[in-house]
């Protein structure tokens, strides 16, 4: 759980330095698609940095690199874990990346990748179990979050595969917010939510800030973005030069 050093506001939590990314499409004759280049910015404890720019500018790619499911070509993506300890995700081994995800960085993806037969409550509780919480404790917290996001209780015991987009997204948000990861990545968490639930998410982001969590996110809704962003990083300034 978060210690004082982690939650102290203003501390550097995540820094990207000269990160670049291209895709080589071998099935298209090896054409190289530049995505972003020289991406550099910092995220501090207690702030929410929002990636801005039009579709296709590379916002999602930056977020995915910061979680490690896209590999960066060069540069450094450094997580600062307090006490002078830091790790660069660009050069981290798979095992180090898994440990980073377990303890340091959480992710709210746009779409839920459902596991057959696992209930919504257990999908949400899972990251907390991985943190060492008991099943009972994890389920209780999962229920609190789902209630907060107005997911009807009759759905909690069902697998989310058949849920609507908005319901799945709320399961996803609860799953991402349940732990006290010092860094949280948010990929359009409010995209398919109604006004009431958008408000609930904004309140949850505010709470994370007060708890000293560093957040990096993409929010397409102007209204939401204006409310949560402490700083907007314009991704178009990292437009990659064609290779």
């Amino acid at each position: 759980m978060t210690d004082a050093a982690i939650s102290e506001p203003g501390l550097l939590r995540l820094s990207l330095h000269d990160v670049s990314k291209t895709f080589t499409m071998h099935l298209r004759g090896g054409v190289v698609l530049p995505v972003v280049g020289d991406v550099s910015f910092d995220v501090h404890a207690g702030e929410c940095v929002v990636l801005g720019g039009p579709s296709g500018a590379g916002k999602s790619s930056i977020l995915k690199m910061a979680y490690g499911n896209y590999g960066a070509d060069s540069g450094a993506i450094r997580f600062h874990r307090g006490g002078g300890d830091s790790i660069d995700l660009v050069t981290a081994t798979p095992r180090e990346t898994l440990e980073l995800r377990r303890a340091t960085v959480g992710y709210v993806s746009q779409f839920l990748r459902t596991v057959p037969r696992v209930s919504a409550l257990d999908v949400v509780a899972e990251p907390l179990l991985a943190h060492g919480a008991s099943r009972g404790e994890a389920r209780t917290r999962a229920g609190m979050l789902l209630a907060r996001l107005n997911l009807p209780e009759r759905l909690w015991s069902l697998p989310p595969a058949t849920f609507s987009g908005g319901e799945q997204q709320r399961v996803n948000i609860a799953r991402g917010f349940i732990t006290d990861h010092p860094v949280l990545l948010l990929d359009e968490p409010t995209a398919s939510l109604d006004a009431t639930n958008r408000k609930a998410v904004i309140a949850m982001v505010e709470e994370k800030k007060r708890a000293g969590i560093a957040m990096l996110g993409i929010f397409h809704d102007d209204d939401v973005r204006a409310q949560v962003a402490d700083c907007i990083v314009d991704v178009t300034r990292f437009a990659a030069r064609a290779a």
Partner: protein
Amino acid sequence: MSDEALLRVNGLGKSYGSRIGCTDVGFELWPGEVLAIVGESGSGKTTLLNCLSTALDPTRGRAEYRMRDGAFRNLYDLGEAERRFLMRTDWGFVHQNPADGLRMTVSAGANVGERLMAVGERHYGRIRATALDWLTRVEIATDRIDDQPRAFSGGMRQRLQIARNLVTNPRLVFMDEPTGGLDVSVQARLLDLLRGLVADLGLAVIIVTHDLAVARLLSHRMMVMKEGRVIEAGLTDRVLDDPREPYTQLLVSSILQV
């Protein structure tokens, strides 16, 4: 997370005369980690699995396993009796065809109990109680304990094979296409069951599959094989979301979307 690997593989290769089965394979596996080996038929993934589980002797290379006493031993320096002991106690092997891993003409309870007896358990009541517990864990009705697996459906047989393998608390389990040949709904149930058991027991697993969706759901890390070589390896979601090698890109782009 343990700080020491359970298995360290270096330069492993198997040739059949001049034909390469697999070559130059190296990786480390830690407790609690699920490693998927993917590739098409003939890519060498089954040869590699058989070398690792010592069913085949490799032509070259080493695989050092951390024994229960903490010492690393090269699997290929072990005597036949030591290997069999590992296979009976510390390891499990889930075959694609349950008939290869079960005894089809003895009861379900005996299939599970037999492995316990192999590790020295002699008390009939305890063996039966443990067998019942494991049948429940793999979702087989306990009133089927005296039935032979011949009378079971494919999905039930596969679940029974899993119970038989896990009852001795192995540290490393090999799986060869464990969901192959099952109906999709049966597959989903089995995957979910495996996922839960692997996480609860903290097992290390090496799973061979040609099904990338299975690999995505179960594994932490992945090795992609082609023509006997590991051509790409890494975190499972990195390999699937951002494949680098032409062949991996082809595999990933060939997944049917539903």
